[in-house]
């Protein structure tokens, strides 16, 4: 163990990059606020919507890291132990991005911006049978409480998971303490997973995203959102793993682990497509106006290009490029695919949100990429800080050996 580089020192170049990206992002935010945030009502909606989908996207994909740790823990997985500090570090972003999300969403809800959430318009709800029926769920009070609870509990339960992982840094376990360590891990992971299912797996996408089209609903929607964020979350983990390998850290992580991450990226891209298609095909086939209103302006309107680009980037590319096992073991190809998948699902979130609040006009432009750079910069800055805080190897974890000898 003497040759293992346990402590990450943040390279100066990484810091510079983070500051530069944050700088560009802040500049875009300020210019966006001046030109759009104080402009006409439509411009304001575009401005807020752009921040909204970015912050929701980044909150959910960083939260997917903690979900990854929890499911592998529940499945008694050992292979991820050699790099588990990376998803742990990424999941420290949940409280930070989560607070931004809460701030933006509560601002929208309390300012009563019914151009974004139509159900905030009390007059419209009073004269609308459908919205009246939904008002037990879609109301300001429930939205606020549930949003706060969701982000709060993700942060708390995730923090407890990271807390217990530190126990394996100091001293070796014997049979008894080791078994109790694994059991406590299992309990904490199960708590997070249950809460994850009640939020990301169902209610949170309904509240935050699906209610943008207040009349429309789809039972696939939450799973679709989950698949989207999980596959990008795995790609983000893969990117950080490859970066750390490049800098000479994570000696125990090798192509075998990369292969498994690649399999996750491949499999969940297919899973995402399965949900995309299940949602699309049933609505296309039954062809009922109250259901097709979601797809009408996406498939036949201005969003057509982005809608099908989304399918090409997120389905055709991973399917064909990641299919061969040698591709999943190739650092360059996995890096390329990870960036492509994250970008693709960012575009997916773009059309999910902006396709509903700016139906006539595709707004993708400098503001979107500026805000994206702000979030990427923040992510790099805080994740590298979190990585430097703890040893990179969970030295005394009972399953570490399983990860070292891992073989696919």
């Amino acid at each position, binding site marked *: 163990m003497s040759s293992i580089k346990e402590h990450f020192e943040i390279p100066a170049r990484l810091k510079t990059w983070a500051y530069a990206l944050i700088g560009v992002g802040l500049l875009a935010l300020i210019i966006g606020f001046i030109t759009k945030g104080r402009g006409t009502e439509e411009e304001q909606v575009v401005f807020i919507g752009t921040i909204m989908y970015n912050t929701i996207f980044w909150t959910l994909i960083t939260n997917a890291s903690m979900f990854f740790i929890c499911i592998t823990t529940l499945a008694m997985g050992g292979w991820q132990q050699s790099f588990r500090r990376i998803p742990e570090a990424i999941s420290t972003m949940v409280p930070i991005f989560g607070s931004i999300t809460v701030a933006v969403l509560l601002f929208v809800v309390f300012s009563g911006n019914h151009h974004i959430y139509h159900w905030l318009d009390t007059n419209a709800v009073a004269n609308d049978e459908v919205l009246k029926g939904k008002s037990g769920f879609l109301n300001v009070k429930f939205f606020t409480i549930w949003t706060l609870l969701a982000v709060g509990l993700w942060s708390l339960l995730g923090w407890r998971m990271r807390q217990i992982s530190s126990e394996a840094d100091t001293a070796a376990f014997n049979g008894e303490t080791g078994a109790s360590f694994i059991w406590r891990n299992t309990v904490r992971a199960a708590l997070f997973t249950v809460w994850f299912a009640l939020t990301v797996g169902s209610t949170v996408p309904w509240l935050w995203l699906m209610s943008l089209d207040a009349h429309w609903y789809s039972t696939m929607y939450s799973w679709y959102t989950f698949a989207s964020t999980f596959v990008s979350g795995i790609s983000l983990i893969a990117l950080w793993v490859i970066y750390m390998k490049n800098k000479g850290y994570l000696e125990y992580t090798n192509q075998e682990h990369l292969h498994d991450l690649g399999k996750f990226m491949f499999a969940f891209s297919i899973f995402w497509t399965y949900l995309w298609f299940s949602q699309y*095909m049933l609505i296309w086939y039954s062809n009922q106006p109250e259901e097709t209103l979601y797809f009408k302006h996406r498939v036949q309107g201005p969003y057509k290009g982005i809608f099908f680009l989304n399918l090409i980037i997120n389905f055709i590319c991973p399917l064909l490029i990641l299919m061969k096992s040698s591709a999943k073991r190739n650092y360059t190809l996995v890096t390329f695919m990870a960036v492509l998948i994250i970008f693709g699902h960012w575009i997916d979130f773009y059309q999910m949100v902006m396709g509903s609040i700016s139906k006539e006009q595709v707004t993708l432009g400098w503001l979107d990429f500026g805000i994206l750079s702000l979030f990427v910069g923040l992510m790099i800055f805080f994740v590298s800080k979190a990585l430097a805080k703890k040893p990179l190897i969970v030295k005394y974890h009972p399953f570490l050996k399983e990860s070292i000898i891992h073989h696919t």
Partner: protein
Amino acid sequence: MAKKKFVVGCFNDEAVLFPAVKKVRTAGYKIHDVYTPFAVHGLDHALGLRETSLHTAGFIYGITGTSTALGCISWILTYDWPLNIGGKPHFALPAWIPITFELTVLFAAVGMVLTFCYLCQLSPFIKKHHFHARATDDLFVMVIETTDKTNVDDLTSFLSNAGAVETDVQIAEAGWWLGRYDKDEVPFQNKIVAA
């Protein structure tokens, strides 16, 4: 089919088998095959076998299934016998995707099973020599091909030194044959296994 002389070494542990395979290969002997009671991870690498091309075959079968389904349905429903189903266009691609998917899976699965059987020379009525009955139970059986120049006694003691619990010299059919065990060969005859 040609009969050949084989030297058989039996091991009772994977941990002994791997170094033995390495030693036998570096000594220059040709390993005919290793029979194990279960799939042993990494043994194919140790034996120096090339990567299987079964998955490439699977991809080709899958693509064949996809094009068969799409070609067939589009020909039937747009050209040969167009029907108005629920007012949908004749070229109703989304509705065909489930069937296309099913046919892709079916072609790939059936094709791969048959290819696998072909590559392993498995089929009803096709027989192969069993070198040791306990290879199906708890022994790892390494079979080495000999030539006229091979010193069988040397090889036998070499295997024992490498950790074989039991060694044996057999003259047997190297490939497969069509037939019945009870007529051509009684497979498990005269094999008294040391406890």
